[in-house]
């Protein structure tokens, strides 16, 4: 009679560390934060450089911020396809003054508060906050710019925890300046001058070393920060239609969303990436997607308003018609269109800012 061999039951605790790590790497980034509470080892692991690097390079969340921090913001995770609330009430400001969230980079949001109702005449206070770590920092007044035209926050350096905020605005002598704030020196410094250009709105994006914004004449202004060179790029034309341009910044780079309107209603939508060609030292348009007619019709029906807003979140571009509770998402890498689950019925969210929010695993500062 042969020996009875008992099969040893493998336990999860038998799993070698590196295999456990492999499993944890496959988790949605949301879990990187929640599972720190499991034990000391996991807390250290999820705070490590390795997991931070995964978090930094993963698909960002979408954050919806109402203009009063008394109301919670909404956070959408593309991993779990769910919404969460997150409070920004740690930022102090007068209830009557709206807070506008304008920029996002490396898990930090740039906002302006105390804008007062005389927008353009008084200098708003700029604020940088980290919603996930509930920290904020109020920036000191700029040295040279007295009227802000546009602003942006730049991504944190790879090795440092330093961030930069850039502002384009008018000096008291009517020159258009670029002023930069460094979080380490906690000071503003003039970083360049920009030829007299009328910027259409406050949205400015930093992408691949340059700042981009839409000019009043409907073109794109690209300012190479290091070289101090400004380039004006005209919008692409489509069948002699004029396109209403909106800029979004996403994973692949700067994208221009061109809405084709007819009789005050959206007829079509095309997206182009603005690519810089080193050889000719100029920008070229590369079409990256088009809204199919069926989707366009659904989008028109989602709201009575003709206006819409769009934002780049990682490799996705989100669209929302004004006064609509529905968000349409274009996945750039898959070239697919999808509607997000409706977020809420609360109409107070109807006019709000929305931005990508990169979960940075160990970014605790502000």
């Amino acid at each position: 009679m042969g020996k009875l061999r008992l099969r040893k039951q493998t336990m999860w605790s038998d799993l070698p560390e590196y295999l456990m790590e492999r499993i944890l790497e496959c988790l949605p980034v949301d879990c990187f934060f929640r599972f720190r509470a499991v034990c000391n080892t996991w807390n250290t692991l999820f705070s490590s450089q390795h997991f931070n690097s995964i978090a930094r390079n993963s698909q960002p969340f979408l954050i919806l911020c109402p203009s009063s921090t008394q109301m919670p913001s909404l956070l959408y995770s593309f991993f779990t396809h769910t919404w969460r609330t997150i409070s920004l009430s740690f930022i102090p400001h007068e209830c009557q003054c709206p807070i506008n969230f304008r920029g996002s980079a490396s898990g930090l949001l740039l906002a302006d508060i105390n804008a007062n109702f005389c927008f353009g005449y008084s200098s708003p206070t700029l604020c940088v906050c980290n919603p996930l770590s509930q920290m904020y920092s109020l920036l000191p007044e700029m040295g040279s710019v007295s009227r802000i035209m546009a602003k942006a926050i730049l991504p944190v350096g790879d090795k440092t925890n330093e961030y930069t905020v850039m502002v384009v605005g008018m000096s008291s002598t009517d020159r258009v300046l670029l002023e930069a704030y460094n979080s380490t020196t906690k000071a503003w410094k003039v970083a360049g001058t920009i030829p007299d250009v009328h910027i259409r709105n406050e949205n400015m994006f930093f992408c691949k070393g340059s700042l981009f914004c839409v000019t009043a004449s409907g073109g794109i202004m690209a300012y190479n920060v290091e070289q101090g060179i400004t380039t004006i790029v005209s919008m692409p034309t489509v069948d002699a239609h004029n396109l209403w341009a909106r800029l979004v910044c996403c994973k692949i780079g700067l994208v221009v969303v061109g809405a084709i309107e007819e009789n005050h209603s959206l007829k079509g939508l095309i997206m182009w990436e603005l690519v810089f060609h080193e050889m000719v030292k100029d920008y070229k348009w590369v079409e990256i997607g088009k809204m199919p007619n069926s989707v366009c019709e659904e989008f028109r029906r989602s709201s009575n308003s003709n206006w819409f807003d769009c934002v780049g979140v990682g490799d996705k571009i989100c669209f929302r018609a004004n006064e609509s509770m529905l968000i349409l998402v274009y996945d750039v890498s898959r070239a697919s269109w999808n509607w997000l689950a409706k977020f809420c019925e609360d109409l107070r969210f109807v006019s709000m800012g929305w931005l990508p929010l990169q979960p940075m695993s160990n970014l605790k500062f502000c």
Partner: protein
Amino acid sequence: MVKECKVKLKSSDDKIFEVDYAVAIQSQILNNTLGHTGCTDSALPLHNVSSQILAKVIDYCEYHVNASSTISEKDVKMWDQEFVKHLDQATLLDLLMAAQYLGIHNLQELTCQTVADRIKDKRPEDIREIFNIQNDLTPEEEEEIRCENEWAFEEEVSP
């Protein structure tokens, strides 16, 4: 050059399995071994893999031999999901260890992702139970972590 020979594998509980060469070399370890020894009649001993698990591994490898060239990516994914769907925790763990031991990269990826998918919605206390992890955080330390990452512990909002 596709070898026509058969390869014999012996599980830890002495069962013999015969597979095509192309199936066997999905395992990096076997690929290396066969590269040195060539096709022999003797069975290659796999001390760390039981017959129950080896059978499953072979199932996987047999499907994947042709998968990349003849079957669409979408269908392969669907097959993979079916393959892991009803596996219990213990089998999944054994499969992961076997995939790692044999150097079958895509099976290792699949099992890791499956485990991750099964635990992603769990609370920390559930995780400890599943993986038999001792909570070595003091109540204060745990509270601090929960506060610092409050948003991640928030209940999800549905419309």
